[in-house]
């Protein structure tokens, strides 16, 4: 078992002929993901041949769903077209939409989110590294070589910091069920609680690593959820303990104004809810070991 993506994932890549889209389509297919289609308007009828197996390209996501049976989409299109691409996937009946694109205007997301929800789809991201279920499927940009199969679920707001922690686990021989990057933007489709809920329901996940950062209150709410709804142990990390207040630290979400959303506040919320808190990334191995 895994969450969100597994052997049943039938993936369509939106923006498959772009530089990033083509590179990652190839990487995902090499990892073993069932890549069934690509979409680039105007290039329908062509074939994507960069990966180990040829993949048909369609003009629209609707065609990719109808003709190739796609149920999951990953989006690499530029910010100005990304909101439309997400809504197209939802309208076409895709169940899981993973938006990698960084730089989508937040007001676009205020319209995209209810649109996607009303169509019963799940949006992961935007501005996220995607999801990776070791040995099953990789959707997004996480490097496949740093993961290994095992009992730990990982959920994070960041990209490379996730790789850091996952790699430390893998080097210590502790594998993962699924690694999820929920994205760093102020408005995201899937939050910590949604992901924790899925890990709680997944029988193979025995412990969860939650990686947060400054800004907002998602981590505090997730911490309360852990106490109220979770039986599995959770280990946490918060990035940005030394960030100066009010400055944008790369992620639009990482803004602290006043006292709301500081690292201190979040770490306290973790501790208050029985979540073991790492002081530095390398603490992850010991804390996860004792949680298991």
């Amino acid at each position: 078992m895994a969450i969100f993506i597994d052997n049943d994932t039938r993936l369509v890549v939106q923006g498959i002929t772009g530089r990033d889209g083509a590179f990652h389509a190839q990487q995902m297919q090499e990892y073993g993901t069932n890549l069934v289609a690509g979409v680039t308007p105007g290039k329908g009828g062509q074939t994507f041949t960069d990966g180990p197996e040829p993949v048909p390209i369609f003009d629209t996501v609707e065609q990719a769903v109808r003709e190739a049976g796609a149920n999951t989409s990953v989006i690499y299109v530029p910010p100005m077209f990304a909101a439309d691409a997400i809504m197209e996937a939802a309208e076409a009946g895709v169940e899981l939409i993973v938006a990698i694109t960084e730089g989508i205007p937040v007001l676009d997301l205020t319209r995209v989110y209810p649109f996607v929800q009303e169509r019963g789809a799940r949006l992961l991201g935007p501005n996220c590294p995607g999801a990776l279920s070791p040995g099953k499927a990789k959707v997004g940009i996480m490097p496949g070589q740093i993961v290994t199969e095992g009992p730990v679920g990982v959920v994070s707001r960041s990209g490379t910091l996730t790789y850091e922690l996952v790699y430390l686990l893998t080097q210590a021989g502790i594998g993962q069920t699924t690694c999820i990057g929920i994205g760093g933007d102020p408005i995201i489709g899937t939050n910590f609680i949604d992901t924790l809920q899925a890990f709680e329901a997944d029988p193979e996940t025995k412990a969860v690593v939650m990686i947060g950062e400054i800004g907002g209150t998602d981590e505090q709410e997730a911490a309360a959820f852990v106490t109220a709804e979770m039986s599995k142990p959770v280990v946490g990390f918060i990035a940005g303990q030394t960030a100066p207040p009010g400055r944008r630290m790369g992620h639009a979400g990482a803004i602290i104004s006043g006292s709301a959303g500081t690292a201190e506040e979040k770490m306290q919320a973790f501790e208050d809810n029985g979540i073991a808190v790492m002081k530095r990334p390398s603490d992850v191995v010991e804390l996860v070991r004792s949680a298991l």
Partner: protein
Amino acid sequence: MNIHEYQAKDIFRDCGLPVPPGEVATTPEDARRLAEQYGGTVVVKAQVHVGGRGKAGGVKLAENPGEAMEHAANILGMDIKGLTVEQVLVTPAEDIDTEAYVGVIVDRASKRPVFMVSREGGVDIEEVAARSPEAITRLAVDPRYGLLPFQAYWLAASLYDDIKQQRAAAKTMMSLYDAFIQSGASLAEINPLITTPAGEVKAIDAKMNIDDNELFRRGAIAAMRDLSAEPPSETKAREADLTYIKLDGDIGAVVNGAGLAMATMDLIKFYGGEPANFLDIGGSSSPDKVIAALEIITSDPAVKVILFNIFGGITRCDDVANGIVTALDRINFELPLVIRLTGTNEEEGVRILEQAGISASTSMDEVVQRAVVVARGE
């Protein structure tokens, strides 16, 4: 991106908000001329991107043109929280009966634009929220329909009892929502929205933050960026597509990814060091980005050591290694380098560095500890 009060007021006026006239002056003489033009008492207001201008002495009443010139002379060039005042806004003073607060923000939790209004204006809204949260009325807007007239009226009715003022305020709410959406703002604020003894409703202050991700489609707003209001190193970083924030320490850090960059700063502190900056070279890094990053960091005289922490995902270690080697050729600096390279194309990256006589580690803990030791001069 922050814009100045006078720029936000221009946008507000274009959208039909009741904003009194006003113009910026860059010299005391300009301020005198403007005061003369308006006649009567004027306010001279520092235009800087920080709150607390009034407390810092950056907002003054002037009863005549001579006084306006005097105040402008004092305020221009003044340092407010590290920023130098280059412009002042000169605007006629208003008689104030009541002061209210009106703001719109993009709310993460409800994933919608949210209005916040309060009868307690003219003070920090954070203070009001902490002291008496019930004094703030909140309303989430469904962005697909926009602010509906009845919603605007609900907000207005929570501020005023007089029907004329309610109507004027409702119209102000509608216009403010337009300004917010049309500008791609993440925050638009009127603090205070006043009533005058004659019963008029007026917006006498304006604040807007623009979502950086909107700038590609809003050229007129992007052109409002005031380069003098940010450190030159941050301008250079933005142009090279890097995120850079200068801090006070002596360990310069080059990292890929915002989360890892923050965690690197935290780990520097954990081991007793002080980061000189936050710098994220982002994904898919070209050697040029690495060169720009090194140029920016080496221009900070406080930096004693440069720490690279690269976890290759989209970023390729060989690109970063090539950037480092090229930068060492192209720019002259004596600073020691401490490098960590892991992930995509790690072996090639390490080999490129070794050929140039530079060693690299694969552990984040190890390089950060080493950088702290080097910075101490041990």
